[in-house]
C-alpha cells in the first residue's frame, strides 16, 4: 500500500526530506533509521541505493555506499526493506534514490514490478537528466511512481521545461557541486530559487550541502523545504558500531532521531490561510 506522495507533500509546513543509504550500516538499521526519521518529522525519505560509481555524490555518501555494498546490499534487497518499514509503522513516502545503471540492469519491467510490490512512492535518478528520462517518466506515471526532477543553477534555458513537467517536488541543487556539507550558500542560489519558485506548481526543495538548522532557516525563506543527506549520513557513520549492536541500537536510533529533528521547523500558521 503506497502513500500519496503528492498529497503528503502539500502539508502546511516546511518540508524535510532526509536521505539515508539502504544497508548502511546494515538492512535492519536502515529500517530503524527510517522510523526514527518519521518520528523526527520527516515529510518523506530518500532511500539511497548503494552504487559502485556514485559520481554525483561527495565523499560522505560514497563511503556510505561502500559500507552498504560491503554488507551485500543491492537494489532488490533495498526495495524489499520498504515493506518491513511499513510493517513497523512507516507511513511517509519513500523515494528511491538510485543511479540509472542498477535500474537499467534490472530492466524496466522488473524494476516497476518491484517498485509496486514494495510500495515505492517516488524515484530520483541523479544521472538521468530531463532529456534522457522521457521514457522512464512515462513508465513512472503508468505505475504510479512519482519521478522527481532536479534543477541546477546551470539549468538556465532548460529550467522552464523541467519545472513545468515536475511531479512530486522539485529538487534544486543548491550550488554547483556534488552532495556534501558546506559552510554557506552563494547569494546567487537565492536568485535561482526564486526563479524556480515562480515557475513551479509543486513544492521546491533544496538539496546538496544542507547541513545545519541555520541553513534550513535561511533557505526556507525562499523555498518549501530541504533535502538533507551528508549531514545525516555522517551521523550514521558516527553511530555505525552502535547501530550494528542489538543492545545499543535503540539508543542510537534515538540519537539519530534527535539529530534529524534539528532540521525540522515548526509548522507555521501562514497568514491568510
Amino acid at each position: 500500500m503506497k502513500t500519496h506522495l503528492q498529497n503528503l507533500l502539500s502539508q502546511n509546513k516546511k518540508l524535510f526530506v532526509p536521505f539515508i543509504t539502504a544497508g548502511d550500516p546494515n538492512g535492519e538499521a536502515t529500517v530503524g533509521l527510517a522510523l526514527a526519521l518519521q518520528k523526527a518529522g520527516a515529510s518523506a525519505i530518500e532511500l539511497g541505493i548503494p552504487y559502485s560509481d556514485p559520481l554525483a555524490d561527495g565523499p560522505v555518501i560514497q563511503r556510505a555506499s561502500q559500507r552498504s555494498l560491503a554488507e551485500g546490499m543491492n537494489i532488490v534487497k533495498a526495495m524489499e526493506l520498504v515493506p518491513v518499514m511499513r510493517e513497523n509503522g512507516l507511513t511517509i513516502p519513500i523515494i528511491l534514490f538510485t543511479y540509472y545503471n542498477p535500474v537499467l540492469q534490472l530492466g524496466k519491467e522488473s524494476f516497476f514490478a518491484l517498485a509496486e510490490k514494495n510500495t515505492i512512492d517516488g524515484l530520483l535518478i541523479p544521472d538521468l537528466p530531463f532529456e534522457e528520462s522521457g521514457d522512464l517518466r512515462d513508465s513512472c506515471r503508468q505505475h504510479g511512481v512519482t519521478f522527481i526532477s532536479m534543477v541546477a543553477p546551470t539549468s538556465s534555458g532548460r529550467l522552464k521545461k523541467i519545472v513545468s513537467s515536475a511531479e512530486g517536488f522539485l529538487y534544486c541543487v543548491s550550488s554547483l557541486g556534488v552532495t556534501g556539507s558546506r559552510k554557506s550558500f552563494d547569494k546567487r542560489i537565492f536568485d535561482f530559487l526564486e526563479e524556480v519558485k515562480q515557475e513551479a506548481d509543486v513544492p521546491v526543495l533544496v538539496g546538496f550541502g544542507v547541513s545545519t538548522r541555520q541553513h534550513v532557516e535561511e533557505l526556507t525563506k525562499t523555498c518549501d523545504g530541504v533535502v538533507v543527506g551528508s549531514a545525516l549520513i555522517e551521523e550514521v557513520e558516527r553511530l555505525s558500531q552502535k547501530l550494528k549492536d542489538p543492545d545499543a541500537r535503540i539508543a542510537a536510533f534515538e540519537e539519530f532521531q534527535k539529530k534529524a529533528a534539528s532540521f525540522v521547523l515548526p509548522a507555521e500558521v501562514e497568514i491568510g490561510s
Partner: protein
Amino acid sequence: GRYGEFGGKYVPETLMQPLAELQEAFEEAIADSGFMNEYRRLLSEYSGRPTALTYAENVSEKLGGAKIFLKREDLNHTGAHKINNAIGQALLAKKMGKTKIIAETGAGQHGVAAATVAAKFGLECKVFMGQEDVSRQELNVFRMKLLGAEVIPVHSGNKTLKDATNEAIRYWVQHCEDHFYMIGSVVGPHPYPQMVREFQRVIGDEAKEQLQSRLNTLPDKVVACVGGGSNAIGMFAAFIDEEVDLVGVEAAGKGTDTDLHAATIAKGTKGVIHGSLTYLLQDEHGQITEPYSISAGLDYPGIGPEHAHLSLTGRVSYESVTDDEALSALTFLAQEEGILPAIETAHALAKAFDLAKQMKQDETLMICLSGRGDKDVHTLMDSFEGGGKHEDTPAEPAFTK
C-alpha cells in the same frame, strides 16, 4: 548524441548546460576553417604529423600472408595518438575562454598528453589519478608535475581509472563555470565521443591517403586495439563507408573464461558508465566491476558508445586477445621490425598477425600502432624476467614458431 541506442548524456543536471555549450562550441569549431587550420598546423609543427606509414616487411614475409602496414602513432609527440585529441580539446578550451583544464588518467598517458597541451597553451591543469595508479606509475606522475600539472590522487572506489574519472566528473560538476574537462577517449557524455573521434580521425584519414599514394589501393583489413577506443575510432572513421574489414581488439587479460579480463564487448552488458550508455562490465545488480589487463590503457570497464553500436550492427568485428598473446606479438614486432609497441597496441598486433596469415599476399592489412612501448618496459621486465606479478607468463614468441 546517439549511436543507435548507445551514447547519450547520463550526467547530473548541473552538467547539462556545460555540455550543451561544449557541443555548440565544438560544432562551431570544426566548421571553422581558422580553427581547423590552427589544429592541423599544431599537429604538423608541434606533434610531427603526418606520422609515418611503415611497411612491416619482415613480419609480412615471415607470416606469409597479407602485406602489413603500421600507422605509426607512436611517433607523435608524447609517444601515442592521445596528443591528437588533447591538442584539439586544448584549442577548444581556449576558444571557449576556459583557463583551467581537468583530466582523468589511468596509467598516465592521457594525463601526460593533457599536461603537455596545458603547458603549451598556458592552461592550468589538474589530473585526477587513482591512488593505485599514482603508486604504480610514479614516472608518469613525475612527468606530469614536471610539465606543470597538478596530480590529484583519488582514494575513492578501487583507486584506479574508473574512480579517477568519477572524481574528475565530480570536480567538473563543482567547477564547470571556468574549467574545461578534457576526456581522453571516445567515452563520456555527448559530445565527447563525437568530439574525440573528430580529433582522432586524422589517423585514418592520413593512413588512407598514404596507402593510396603508395599502393593506389584501400587496405583489405584494418585492425586497432580498443580500451575506450579512441585510436580505433580515429583509424576506422576513414574506412567505415568503404569496403574494408574493420577489427577492434579488446584485452582478454588472463582469458575471457576467467574473471580477469577487460573484454567489454565480448563479456559486458548494456549499462551507463561515465555519462554514456554502452556495454560495460558489471554484476547482476548493475555494480560496475574492476577490469583486468596487463595493459593499463585497456583495463577500462566500459567502451566508447560508437563501438557498442558498430558491434551491434556488425560493421566492426570485435575480438579479444590475452596478455600472453599480446606479449608474444610485441616481442615478434620488436625483433623483426625494431619497433617496440605499447602493450595496448600489442593486442591489435596479435590479432592482426593471426588474420594476416589467413590472407593472400596481394592483400593488405593496416594496423594502428597507437603508441610506443617505452612506457611499458618495467611491466615487460616483470613479465619476461620474473620478479613481478606476471612471472608465470613467459611470452613465447609464438609467431616465430
